[in-house]
Each structure stands twice: as structure tokens, then as C-alpha cells.
């Protein structure tokens, strides 16, 4: 039996999305910038995808910039948003638990003279709205907060944060990294007060190499890629037509029978948490109820290094992620786990389990059963 429980890393491409993609790779392979009909066909495919995605977010399809994925979307939002609105100021607010694709461009901005305030989070990974309020200044150009944390599934109070930001400073842009949230929540940026929002295709059963940035109408962003002026100059380069079309299809699919799918994910999560509760030494980190993401569980198996646990599970065809990689010469402790105050001993023994709509109860049971065998065995071997 195989149990792929690493859906926050990437997901299997949906068959519908793959079929759309194949047709555009081999049939409608025109360049959307070409003037002939073959080009028009490709352009139509992109228009359709815009419509499909726009419908899931109640936005205008024109407010989407297609990118190569989540990392580029975050880079474009932060670098492009900050550089285009320098007159507003050079202060940016974010949290300590953002994904590296948010942290790294902010580090670049910091080196260019921007001031970055990184807000701490509580033991569940949730930021404090009061601390956010206090951090905001007249020269705050941008606030970037992730909606769902990729390591522990913490859900940040995005709507409340938007209200706090806009009350303090109506000109401050609010960027939301929704890479782990899109497809799991109904996200309506206009109602929530979000200006910029990043999404990655391969987290929602679209292929790798495609994503988008939502840029609210009238929000200015400076492009980060220059060239032939495609996508109104916001993102040059021949569009990844097959990827974009597949993303449109996958987005549409994600929100079909939406409530049932989310209920299924929560049921899996609860089943898993109840299952591992009986294994000595195993604990679940952060919130675990319906106020946490439906698809992510962070698990600590005391005295079992996360990589050892990961590779032990792999021997049974069970795939999870290591919270932090213990490498021979490059230890990289997880910033999220550090931020929630986890001690090093436990941090090194933490793995992430993440589900998708394709995950079955049998797979969850299988993983729980194997964890029950592996953890007590591996705990016998620790460094002395």
C-alpha cells in the first residue's frame, strides 16, 4: 500500500487538468501573442482560465497575473509592490513564520534600505492583532501575512488583520500568501480587503511551474520580469498556456462540491490525530480543530529524528515531510517551529503530514498503524 501524505509539498495533477494540458501541448500549441488563429486559440485558453479562477474568488479575471508559481508570485507581490509604492514609505510588516519565498525577497528589500518588522506568533502559530496594530506606521507600505502556515497549518486572522491595516493606514497594501489556503478556503479578496494574493498551481492538483498573483484593480506593482510585454507588461515572457489552462481547470475543480471535500479533509485529520494519540511519545503541534487548516498536521515523535522517521515511513510507501532537515553540514532548523517556541530536541523530531481530497481513510489508518510500529522501535536508538 502507498500513502502519499505530503500534499502540502505538492499534489498529484488532476486528470481533468492533465487532459486540458495535453491538448494544449500537442494540439492548441500556438503562441497567444501570434496574430493568427492558432494564437487566438491559445489566447482563448488563457481567457477561459482567467474566468474560471476569477469565479472562485469573485474577482475580475483581469486582476490576475500568471507566474511560474508561488515563489514568483510572492516575489512579484513584495518586490514589485514595495518598489512601485516607495513614496508611501519603506516600512514593511510581516510575521516570523512566513515561507522562505516571502522571507527571502523581504531580506533583499531590507538590504536595499527597507525596514522590516517581523511579528512573533503565539505557541499555536497565530499572530496578535494588537501587535500588528502597534507595528503599523504612516510609512508602512506593505503588510505580508500568510493565510495558512505550511508547516503547522495555523490559520491567521486575515479578515481581522485587513481591517486593522486599513483602519490604521488606508494606503498600506496587504499581501496574503494563500499558497496553502487557496482551494481549502473560500477566499474573496475584495470582501476581505486583500490587495495582493499569491497562489501556486501544484498545491491544488494543477501542474508545477504555474501560479498566479491576484493584484486588486488600481494597485500598482512594478514588474520583476521584463521582455516582450505580455500580460500588459506585468509579466513578460510567452505565457505557459498549457499550465495556465490546467490551473484554471484545477481551480474550478477544487471548488466543486467544496463543502464535502473540506469535510472529508477534516475527517481525515481528526481520524489521524485520534489514531496517533495512542502512540507513546507522539504529540500533535498547534491547533487541531476546525480553526486549523483541514489538510496539515504537525507531529512530533520524541527521540526519533524527523529524517529517520520520514525514511522509516518511506520503507512502507508512506510519504511525509521533515519539519527540519538534519544534514551533515547544513543544519536548517524550521523557522516556524522555532517561532512557536518549540525546544530544539522536539523540533528535530517533527514531521508534517498533509492530506488531499484523494487521501482515503484506509491510507490514514495505514499510516497510523505504521507509526505505531515504527516510533516505539526507533525510540530504542538514541545518541548516548
Amino acid at each position, binding site marked *: 500500500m502507498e500513502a502519499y501524505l505530503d500534499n502540502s509539498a505538492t499534489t498529484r495533477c488532476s486528470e481533468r487538468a492533465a487532459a486540458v494540458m495535453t491538448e494544449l501541448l500537442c494540439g492548441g500549441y500556438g503562441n497567444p501573442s501570434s496574430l493568427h488563429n492558432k494564437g487566438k486559440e491559445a489566447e482563448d485558453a488563457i481567457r477561459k482560465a482567467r474566468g474560471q479562477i476569477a469565479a472562485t474568488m469573485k474577482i475580475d479575471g483581469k486582476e490576475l497575473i500568471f507566474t511560474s508559481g508561488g515563489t514568483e508570485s510572492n516575489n512579484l507581490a513584495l518586490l514589485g509592490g514595495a518598489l512601485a509604492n516607495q513614496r508611501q514609505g519603506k516600512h514593511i510588516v510581516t510575521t516570523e513564520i512566513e515561507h522562505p519565498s516571502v522571507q527571502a525577497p523581504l531580506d533583499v528589500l531590507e538590504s536595499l534600505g527597507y525596514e522590516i518588522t517581523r511579528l512573533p506568533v503565539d505557541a499555536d502559530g497565530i499572530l496578535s492583532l494588537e501587535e500588528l496594530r502597534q507595528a503599523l506606521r504612516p510609512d508602512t507600505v506593505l503588510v505580508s501575512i500568510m493565510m495558512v502556515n505550511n508547516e503547522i497549518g495555523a490559520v491567521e486572522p486575515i479578515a481581522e488583520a485587513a481591517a486593522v491595516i486599513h483602519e490604521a493606514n488606508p494606503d498600506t497594501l496587504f499581501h496574503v500568501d494563500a499558497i496553502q489556503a487557496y482551494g481549502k478556503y473560500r477566499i474573496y479578496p475584495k470582501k476581505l480587503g486583500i490587495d495582493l494574493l499569491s497562489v501556486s498551481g501544484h498545491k491544488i492538483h494543477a501542474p508545477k511551474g504555474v501560479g498566479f498573483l491576484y493584484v486588486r484593480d488600481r494597485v500598482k506593482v512594478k514588474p520583476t520580469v521584463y521582455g516582450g510585454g505580455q500580460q500588459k507588461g506585468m509579466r513578460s515572457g510567452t505565457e505557459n498556456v498549457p499550465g495556465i489552462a490546467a490551473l484554471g481547470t484545477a481551480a474550478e475543480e477544487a471548488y466543486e462540491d467544496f463543502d464535502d471535500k473540506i469535510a472529508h479533509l477534516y475527517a481525515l485529520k481528526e481520524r489521524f490525530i485520534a489514531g496517533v494519540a495512542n502512540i507513546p511519545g507522539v504529540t500533535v503541534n498547534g491547533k487541531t480543530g476546525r480553526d486549523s487548516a483541514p489538510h496539515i498536521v504537525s507531529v512530533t515523535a520524541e527521540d526519533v*529524528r524527523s*529524517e*529517520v*522517521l*520520514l*525514511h*522509516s515511513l*518511506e*520503507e512502507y510507501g508512506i510519504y511525509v515531510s521533515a519539519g527540519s*532537515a*538534519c*544534514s*551533515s*553540514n*547544513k543544519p536548517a532548523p524550521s523557522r516556524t517551529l522555532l517561532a512557536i517556541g518549540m525546544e530544539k530536541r522536539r523540533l528535530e523530531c517533527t514531521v508534517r503530514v498533509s492530506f488531499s481530497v484523494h487521501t482515503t481513510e484506509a491510507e490514514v489508518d495505514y499510516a497510523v498503524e505504521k507509526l505505531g510500529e515504527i516510533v516505539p522501535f526507533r525510540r*530504542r*536508538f*538514541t*545518541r*548516548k
Partner: protein
Amino acid sequence: MYRSFLIKYAEIAIKGKNRYLFEDALVRQIDLALRKAEGEFSVRREQGRIYVDVQSERFDYDETVAALQCVFGIVGICPVVLVEDAGFDRLAEDVISYLKRAYPGQAFSFKVNARRARKNYPMESMEINAALGERILAAFPGTRVDVHSPEVMLHVEIRNQINIYSVVIPGPGGMPVGTNGKAMLLLSGGIDSPVAGYMIAKRGVTIDAVYFHAPPYTSERAKQKVVDLAGIVARYAGPIDLHVVNFTDIQLYIYEQCPHEELTIIMRRYMMKLAEHFAKERGCLGLITGESIGQVASQTMQSLAATNEVCTLPVYRPLIGFDKQEIVGISERIHAYETSILPYEDCCTIFVAKHPVTKPSLHVIRNDERKLAEKIDALVQEAIDTVEVIHIEP
């Protein structure tokens, strides 16, 4: 401009009656190595020299030189222009045309070094030197003669054809692989063992390798790294059969039965035993390790003695007297370093005591190994039975 390379080899030229064996091996290794370079080549032996001739219209000069630089036994690679003997005037023209192309700046100090291997040539070496020097000075006013440290040492060798060359690219030296038996290299993902393999291969030794894999404590990616390192050694040493031995159960058993501070020594003893098993199976005449005295706890004189004791085959330790920095230098030169330092998960530290013994007593170690009596033979046999052999081509 070059269509041929003159291959210089030193050590093998003195091997007496076995000389042809060494030359055959060198030609074979050159042939093999040139498969990596774009172009078609033939290798020929003539009057105690080896030439590589380009047969195809297109060939990649840099790739050709790089391939030849991996062949042990070669001390120098000389891109050479070969011309027919059509009188001295014609030779002078050829030399000038060669210099024009090889040194477009046309301002250099030079010395002509003629050699008359074919004694029926009408001029003597010294005469050729003088006459050619005059012609060169006349053709290139920017040049001057410097017999002590010339920028260009122009070799003109009168053989069946006349050889004109002035560039000698250093080769790796050593002896052609295949002239000196076979040995089993204990290969890890680190810096030392690939260098050790390289150094023994340099003496003409064919290499097989063994790697101890400990899933889930070491990952598939750690194994991939070892496969990649074996590939780097194979560029010089030729094809390698890499034996991947699953060592986990042995490791866990030792962990549970023996004192923690002796784990490393006892594990290494079993690694040596297993390596020797595969070595004998493959007809190897020795083991190779990357050990260097005192580098870590398991490489003190006492520890080396303790691990050495389990083997009957000789254990070759070419790095034994090297400092780390010297080893790193060779690793960089053979292009293994970047791969060796790649990070990969290695949770084997669980099996490394915080304070391992540095002066193990054989008596104590043997005594503690008795605690393994119940299962160890079966576990060793299982490791032997489940070995995975990966054939690695250069």
C-alpha cells in the same frame, strides 16, 4: 589547427620487457577516455611514441585534452602539427605558419629544440636550430631568442613525419589502469575516500568499491551522492562495480549489545570484514581506505590497528600521512570536492558516541564483540546476500 596529439609517458618507458603491456594498457585507456570527447580519433604507436590522430572533420579540442588529462600514465599532452619532409625551406615555412597561428601576438622569446631521430636527414640538430632560428627572427621582428627561459620552446622532431609542437599540457602521471591488479575501495560520501581511490588507481590499479548504506538513518540521496562520487573516480579509474551493503541491522545490533563508546570501532571492524568478503569474491588483492592518522577517533594508531586486525588482505591507506588540507587540494583537483561537500542527511550520528574511545584495546574490543555472538553471523550473511551491485561507467 591541430589534428594530432603527441602523448608523452615517462615511467612506463623504463619497464623493460613488460613495456608492451604498459603501452597496450595506455593505448586502451586513451581509446576509452576519448569516447567522452566530441570527434573520432585513432591512437597509434610509432617508434616508441603514442599519437592521437583526429579522424573526424569536427572535434572538440578542449574536450579532447580534458579526456586525455584523465588517463593515468600520460605525463604530457602535446598538440602537434605533423608535416612531411619536403626539404628545409618547406619546413621553415611550416614552422612559421605554425607560429603565426599558435602565437598571433607574434612577440615572444623562443628557443628551437630540434631532434633528429631519423639520422639520414641532411642537417644536424644544431644546424637546424640555428637555421630555423634565423628564419623565425626574420619572419617575426617582434621575437627574440632566449636559450635559458624562452616563452616558447619550439620542438621540431625529424621522424617519419616532422613533429612541430611547443605546448606541453601536463597529464596526471602514474601508470595506466589495468596494469596492476584490482583493489576494493571503502567509499563513503566524504572527501577522503574518493581521493584515496584516485591515488591507488593512479598506480595502475583497477578499482571496485563498497558503500555501507544504513536506511532509514542514511537516505537514498546520500547513496546517490556516493554513486556520483564513484562516477568521478571512474573518470580516472575506469568502470567501477559499487557494492551497496545494507548495514542497518548490524549497526542496530551492535548498538544494543556493545558499549556505546566502542560502537564506531566495532562497526568499522565489521565494515572491513564485509569489504574483505566482497574483495575476495571479486579477485581484489587489497582494500583501500581514506584513513589518515589521527584525523578522527577511529583513525588513531590504536583504532587503525584494531580495524586492521580483522583483515587478511593488505589495506592500502594512501592518505595516511596527509593533512586534511592536502587531501582537500587533491579532491578539488580531481573535481570531487564539490560533490563531497554536498549536504545530505546523515543521522548516523546516533551511532557516534559523544566520547568514543580513542585508544581501544584489542582485548576489550574482542571481549565486547562476544556479546554479538548470538546473531551477528546471520546478520553479516544477510548483508552479503542482499548486496546491491551498481555498475558505474566513467
